[in-house]
């Protein structure tokens, strides 16, 4: 096990700069998730840590050692690929024991380690099968088994769940997390799915266009997003953004809608700038007070109701936990929870 230090790392393919300047410190045993939309550079960063891509500038260290010029095979890391990358001509047991075979480990020792990993993942009965005889979830487990057997310094996961169906994904999410708690190995995990990031990570690194937008614990990112991008990316359904400015101590939208200032914001510091008001759908309640509007869409899932409300030209999405007898086209009054609202500078995108 080891810590991983990523220091001012850059990556360019020819003239195209994929990663501009990324620095992340990952503590020993931490579960860190790199998340961002496609093309943000998260997979490239992971492949640079793995040694599959060269580092254009900056430094990556695993433990004490800078690994910039170390080959992938000398880094003592294990990686689970999005498409599993199982060796098709080898049985499950051979797949899992491949790294030890390369190291010329004692075959008996290899067998016992493969067996132990198989029992952790529930693969005991599949050891003699070939990858083509396995289901998607089983292949996923074998790929993880191959990583466990090696007892590496760092686990790397590259979108490992994106090829599984929704139900299996939730199950494997739990299993990967349990596995991390059991083994305690430093883990770096790449995903574009913010739910995966929120549920599994000790620490989330939000990447966008090759830059780190924010690093923090999942709930910190949810409660205190550093900027508009993180605010919009974390949380589902996405946060409402309303453009406007502060006037006489209240927020006035471009369409003339007035909203109470978020708690802890002094009118003076917000006055005179272009602003974006952010409020999450789940922090809006229908109490019979507050803004009046018309329901334009209403979706009830049983546990909650998702609705969009048109308040004088601003369409606001709301998530109600209680069962309300709302109908499309009906008038409704919604109240914003000031404690959970945010103000962002429209020009810089930074939170105030």
């Amino acid at each position, binding site marked *: 096990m080891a810590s991983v230090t990523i220091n001012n790392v850059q990556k360019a393919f020819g003239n195209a700069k994929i990663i501009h300047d990324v620095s992340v410190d990952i503590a020993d045993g931490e579960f860190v998730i790199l998340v961002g939309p496609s093309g943000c550079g998260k997979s490239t960063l992971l492949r640079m840590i793995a*040694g*599959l891509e060269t580092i254009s500038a900056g430094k990556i260290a695993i433990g004490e050692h800078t690994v910039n010029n170390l080959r992938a095979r000398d880094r003592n890391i294990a990686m689970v690929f999005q498409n*599993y990358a199982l*060796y*098709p*001509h080898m049985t499950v047991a051979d797949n899992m024991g491949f790294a030890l075979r390369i190291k010329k480990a004692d075959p008996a020792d290899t067998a016992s380690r493969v067996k132990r990993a198989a029992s952790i993942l529930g693969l005991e009965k599949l050891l003699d099968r*070939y990858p*083509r005889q396995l289901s998607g979830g089983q*292949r996923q487990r074998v790929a993880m088994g191959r990583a466990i057997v090696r007892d590496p310094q760092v686990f790397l996961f590259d979108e490992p769940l994106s090829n599984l169906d929704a139900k299996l994904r939730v199950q494997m999410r739990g299993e990967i997390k349990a596995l991390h708690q059991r083994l305690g190995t430093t883990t770096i995990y790449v995903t574009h799915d913010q739910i995966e990031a929120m549920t599994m990570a000790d620490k989330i690194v939000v990447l966008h266009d090759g830059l780190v937008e924010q690093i923090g614990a999942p709930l910190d990112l949810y409660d205190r997003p550093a900027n508009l991008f993180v605010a919009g990316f974390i949380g589902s359904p996405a946060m409402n953004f309303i453009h406007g400015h502060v006037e006489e101590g209240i927020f006035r939208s471009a369409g003339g809608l007035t909203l109470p200032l978020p708690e802890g914001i002094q009118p003076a510091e917000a006055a005179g700038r272009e602003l974006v008001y952010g409020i999450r759908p789940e922090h809006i309640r229908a109490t019979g007070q507050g803004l009046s509007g018309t329901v334009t869409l209403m979706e009830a899932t049983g546990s909650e109701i998702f609705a969009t409300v048109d308040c004088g030209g601003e369409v606001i999405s709301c998530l109600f936990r209680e069962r309300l007898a709302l109908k499309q086209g009906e008038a409704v009054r919604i109240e914003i929870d000031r404690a959970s609202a945010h103000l962002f500078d429209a020009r810089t995108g930074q939170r105030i």
Partner: protein
Amino acid sequence: MGSRLLNKIGLFFGALVLVSPAILFFLWMISLSLKFEIDNGAYPPILIPERFAWSNYAKVFEENNFLLYMWNSVLVTGTATLLALLIGVPAGYGIARLKAERSAIVIMIARMTPGLSYLIPLFLLFQWLGILGTLWPQIIIHLVVTVPIVVWVMIGYFETTPMELEEAANIDGASSWQVFRLVALPIAKPGIVVAFILSIIFSWNNFVFGVVLASRETRTLPVAVYNMLSYEQVSWGPLAAAALVVTLPVLVLTMFAQRQIVAGLTAGAVKGG
């Protein structure tokens, strides 16, 4: 139900029309090889004779030292193919992985150049080396045919193997050579079989090189068959029998080796692969 039957019949006839040139050609050759000369020249033509002329086949082996020529063919084709695999498979891997398309084109040009243009310089070279009486000149010149085939088939095959497999092996600690030997090569087995068969067929049937470079003792089968044509007359029966004997080993080999080309060997390696 009726339309399904009709579909089947239609498909059957379609297939029959498509394969009939090849099949009829074979049938006629078999027929020729089993008829006496009088039947072979008969009009209207006779497909199945009243008396089979097995003696045609006996004649092939009696008169022409055919077994020696067959052994020559086996040595030339076998050695040229094995050498081609030895050189061509790693070469194809290297070209595919390094994306060295230009060197692939150079190899292709070697294949496209008429074989005859190599013959005279090589003939002089072999003469100078003093190996003209042996099979080596033919083996070496057959590499001009076999190596490009193997290289090109293998480039195509290695390009389709998912890169992630090799990256995974890399991360598992394998060196480049181990990646090739333990991962890339076993997965490419169907491709190697295809390259092997094609190389054998082209080398086995090659005629021009043998005609120029072979002496009486080092003839290969196609040359031997050609030498059965004499100026006075063409004896169709023995000629067809000889041609069939030449074709048979390649035919059997192809049918046998085809089983090795198991489609979807890489299935299960990567999702959707």
